[in-house]
């Protein structure tokens, strides 16, 4: 049984592409055959985060328009042989593809892959409609900020209206030190407001920046974010994994230092 998962958020810059890259890579690490599709036509980014930008020959629009076969456009990952990327087109726009065409493509890919991960563009227009058309399941990414949560709520409403079967939430960029001081909404606050199932909480980790500098997703590595992403992958596979203690990085010294901070 293969599954088509769309990673979406409404607001830009909350971590959709990073999440897509890490979830895709993590599922491949767990021995699933995975294809990542960048549906952000005109603003191609997933290839860079994956470190595969130099290998692009054909793209999503070429496949849709029949200029090449899907196989020719897929790029095999440099570390995992069961992980592929279908890059987006950089010189076209969202109207180059219709929801029907996207659904036909993802349905075709089901024959060959266990997981098809779609990286959705920001916004609620055509690009969003294309990305969700063929999906069985959605991962909504948000951060603990008013604007991101407001957009996530709107997206959750739109997914419901489009009869998405399964929607889960990922809360990204949590800063446990700020939550402790009361200067950031906690995971519980966010869940209380959005009222959907949580599939993972990812801390704000500088290793994310380092890993995207290098073009190598950090899922599964010995970092807090790496572990958080791996846990999300296991939960996608149906495993019960307890939530990670995000404040684990704060030793006694950090706690004492916090006590003396006035703000």
């Amino acid at each position, binding site marked *: 049984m293969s599954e088509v998962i769309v990673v979406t958020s409404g607001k830009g810059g909350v971590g959709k592409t990073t999440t897509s890259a890490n979830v895709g890579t993590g599922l491949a690490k767990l021995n699933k055959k995975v294809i990542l599709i960048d549906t952000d036509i005109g603003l191609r980014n997933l290839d860079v985060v994956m470190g595969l930008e130099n290998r692009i020959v054909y793209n999503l629009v070429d496949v849709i328009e029949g200029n090449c076969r899907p196989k020719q456009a897929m790029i095999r990952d440099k570390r995992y042989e069961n992980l592929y990327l279908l890059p987006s087109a950089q010189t076209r726009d969202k109207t180059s593809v219709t929801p029907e065409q996207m659904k036909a493509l993802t349905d075709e890919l089901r024959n060959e892959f266990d997981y098809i991960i779609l990286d959705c563009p920001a916004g609620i227009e055509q690009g969003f409609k294309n990305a969700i058309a063929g999906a069985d399941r959605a991962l909504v990414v948000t951060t603990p900020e*008013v604007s991101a949560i407001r957009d996530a709520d709107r997206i959750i409403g739109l997914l419901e209206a489009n009869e998405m079967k399964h929607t889960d939430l990922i809360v990204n960029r949590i800063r446990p030190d700020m939550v402790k001081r009361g200067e950031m909404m906690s995971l519980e606050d966010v869940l209380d407001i959005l009222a959907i199932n949580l599939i993972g909480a990812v801390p704000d980790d500088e290793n994310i920046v380092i890993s995207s500098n290098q073009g190598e997703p950090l899922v599964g590595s010995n970092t807090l974010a790496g572990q958080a992403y791996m846990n999300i992958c296991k939960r996608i596979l149906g495993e019960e994994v307890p939530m990670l203690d995000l404040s684990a990085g704060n030793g006694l010294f950090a706690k004492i230092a916090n006590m003396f901070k006035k703000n």
Partner: protein
Amino acid sequence: MSVFDLFKKRSSGDIAKDRLKLLLVSDRANCSPETMELIKNDIIKVIAKYMEIDCDGLDIQITQTESDGDNGSVPALIANIPIKELRHGK
């Protein structure tokens, strides 16, 4: 939490949560500020027939409130209408 926090005003995390709650109720109700303004004007018209009210002090908002039944919290339209003077014997 440090001892200084005891004297501080409400934390920004709580402020964010409260703002979001209000925001999402009106977002979900799909009620634009223009519609709210129309509702407000109509309320003023009706009430002004019977008593003198402070139009500038009038405030209406859609918010979340506990229902009398057991369906948890439900959206409610709350209006705060300051009365200047009741008109007697008319």
